[in-house]
C-alpha cells in the first residue's frame, strides 16, 4: 500500500487533548512540518505557553520549556542568547500573547529577537472556560461578556499583526487562517517563511493563525470554520503585514 500521508517526525505519538473541531491540532501539525522542512540540522527549542497549548511540550518532539503565562517571548529571548544558532519558537494563544504578555511580545519584536512566534488567535480564553480575550470580537459572547462584547463596556479588539508591523525589529509578520484547505496550505507556507527568516537571522517573526474554539464559542466545528471565514477575517484581515 502506498503511504500518502505521514505525521511529522517533530510530533510525538501522544494524542492531542484538544477538543473536537479545535484547530490547535492543525496549527501544531503545520508548525512541526515547517520545522521539519528546515532539515533538522540546526536543533530546535520550543516554548509552551499557559492556555490550551500548555501541554505543547507533550506534542512537539524537540526540546521545550514551559513558560509562565505571557512570558514566552522573554523565555525565548533568554534561550536564544544561550543558543543563538538554534531555532527558537514560542507557541502562544491570544490571552497569553495579547493580554498578560503584551509587553513581552512588543519588546521582543522591538528588540528584533531572532525568534519565531506562532500566535493562535481564537478570540477567547479556552483553557479557563470561555472568558473574553483581548481579541474577542465586538458582539461576540463570552462568559465575561455575556451580552456580547461592546466597545463602550469592554473596549475594542486588538490587532496584533498591524501593531507589530510598525516596529523596526519585526522582520516577518503575517496573519493566516485555517478555515479551509486552501487557507491551511497558505498558513503552512507562512509558518515556513517565518522560520526561514529566523534561519537567515533577519529578526523577529510572527504568524497569527485565526483559529476556532467550538467548545467555548458554543458552535459546531463546521459553524466555527464559517465564523472564522465570515466574521473573524473582517476584523482580522489575512495578509502579510511586514516582510523585510
Amino acid at each position: 500500500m502506498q503511504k500518502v500521508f505521514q505525521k511529522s517526525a517533530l510530533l510525538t505519538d501522544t494524542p492531542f487533548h484538544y477538543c473536537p473541531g479545535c484547530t490547535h491540532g492543525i496549527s501544531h501539525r503545520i508548525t512541526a512540518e515547517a520545522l521539519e522542512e528546515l532539515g533538522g540540522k540546526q536543533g530546535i527549542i520550543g516554548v509552551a505557553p499557559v492556555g490550551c497549548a500548555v501541554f505543547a511540550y507533550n506534542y512537539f518532539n524537540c526540546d521545550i520549556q514551559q513558560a509562565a503565562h505571557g512570558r514566552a517571548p522573554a523565555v525565548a529571548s533568554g534561550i536564544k542568547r544561550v543558543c543563538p544558532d538554534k531555532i527558537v519558537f514560542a507557541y502562544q494563544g491570544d490571552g497569553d500573547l495579547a493580554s498578560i504578555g503584551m509587553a513581552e511580545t512588543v519588546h521582543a519584536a522591538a528588540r528584533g529577537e531572532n525568534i519565531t512566534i506562532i500566535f493562535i488567535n481564537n478570540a477567547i480564553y479556552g483553557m479557563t472556560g470561555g472568558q473574553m480575550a483581548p481579541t474577542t470580537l465586538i458582539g461576540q459572547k463570552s462568559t465575561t461578556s455575556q451580552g456580547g462584547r461592546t466597545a463602550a463596556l469592554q473596549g475594542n479588539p486588538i490587532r496584533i499583526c498591524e501593531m507589530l508591523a510598525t516596529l523596526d525589529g519585526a522582520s516577518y509578520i503575517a496573519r493566516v487562517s485555517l478555515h479551509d484547505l486552501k487557507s491551511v496550505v497558505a498558513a503552512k507556507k507562512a509558518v515556513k517563511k517565518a522560520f526561514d527568516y529566523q534561519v537567515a537571522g533577519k529578526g523577529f517573526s510572527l504568524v497569527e493563525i485565526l483559529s476556532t474554539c467550538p467548545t467555548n464559542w458554543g458552535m459546531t466545528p463546521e459553524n466555527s470554520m464559517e465564523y472564522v471565514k465570515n466574521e473573524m477575517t473582517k476584523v482580522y484581515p489575512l495578509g502579510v503585514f511586514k516582510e523585510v
Partner: protein
Amino acid sequence: MSERILMKGNEAVAEAAVRGGCRYFFGYPITPQNEIPEYMSKRLPEVGGAFIQAESEVSAINMVYGAAGAGGRAMTSSSSPGISLKQEGISYIAGAELPCVIVNMVRSGPGLGGILPSQGDYFQSVKGGGHGDYRMLVYGPASIQEAVDITYKAFEKAEKYRIPVMILGDGVLGQMMEPVVLPEMTDIASIPVKEWATDGTKSGKDRRIINSLYIEADVLEGMNNKFAALYERMKAETACETYLADDAEIILTAFGITARIAKSAVDILRESGVKAGLIRPITLYPFPSDIYAQYAAKKTVKQFITLELNLGQMVEDVRLAVNGAKPVDFYGRSGGNIMSPEETVQQVLKKIK
C-alpha cells in the same frame, strides 16, 4: 594573594558573578542596584556573554528562566519592588528546578517606599516570596568581600541543588566601597555539562523538557516531597559567624550590614563591662537554628537581642530556634534609617533584664 582593589558593592558583585561563570544577565533599572546591570552591560560582551535590559522585572526573570533552562549561567538583580515583580518567575524557576542567581539590594518599603537601605525583604526571601512551597538558598553578606566570595560560588551552589540562589544585600552594601580581592576567572569549559538543559542538541526520545506543571496530585506531591528532601540536604550549606559569643551573657544577633553595627556595639559593650557577643547568620535559608539552640542551652547566656532594619522578621526565626529557652528581644529601625553602634548600645542596655 591577588591585589586589593577598591570597589563599589554593586560592581564587585557583578564582577564576582562574571568570574564565577555568569554569562547571561537580564535586568531592569531600579535604585539602589543600577550599577549591577550597568556593569554587566559593558562587561558581559567582553567575555562572550549577553546582557538584555528587559522591558520589566517580570520579563527579566523570565529571560533568566529561559537562559538557565538552556544551560547558561544566568543572573538578574533588582531591589525590593522589582524583586516583588520577579516572584512569579522565581517560583517557576524553583518549580522547574533551574539554577540561577538573584541579587536583591533591598530598599525600604512597603510600596514604592524609599531608596534607602532596609532588611524588610527577609520574610519574602526566606519564606518563599512567590507562590507554592519552595525555598531558595539565601545569603546575607555583611561586607563587599563576603558578597564577592558568595556570588563567585553562587552558580556552583545553584547548579549543585538546581535551585535559585538569592543574595540578599541592601542599599548600603550596594553603594558602599571597600577594598576587595577578586577571585580568579572561572574556566567556562570546566563547568559540568547540564544533562537536563534544553539546548536544542537532542530530539525524539532524548529531548528535554523544562516544566513545572504537574496536573496529577500524586505526581506533584512527589515533586514537593523531592523538594523537601532537597531543602533538607541543603542544610549542609548553613553558614554562620560568631563573635565573642563563647562567654557572652547577652547575645546580639543580626545579619548583613546590621551585623557590622552589632559588632561595633559588642565592642563598646565589652569595654563598658557588659559580656556581649554576636551571632551572625551568613545563610538566612537554611537558617543556623542549631547554633542558636546551642547558645540558648548555655547557662551563661541570659538573653538574645535581635537587631534588624525592619519591624521584626528574622527575630521570628531566632525565637523558633531558641524555643523559649531564653528571652529574645528585638530592636529595629526602618524607613531607611540605620541604627548607629552607640544607639544600639543604649537600646541593649535598656533591654538587659
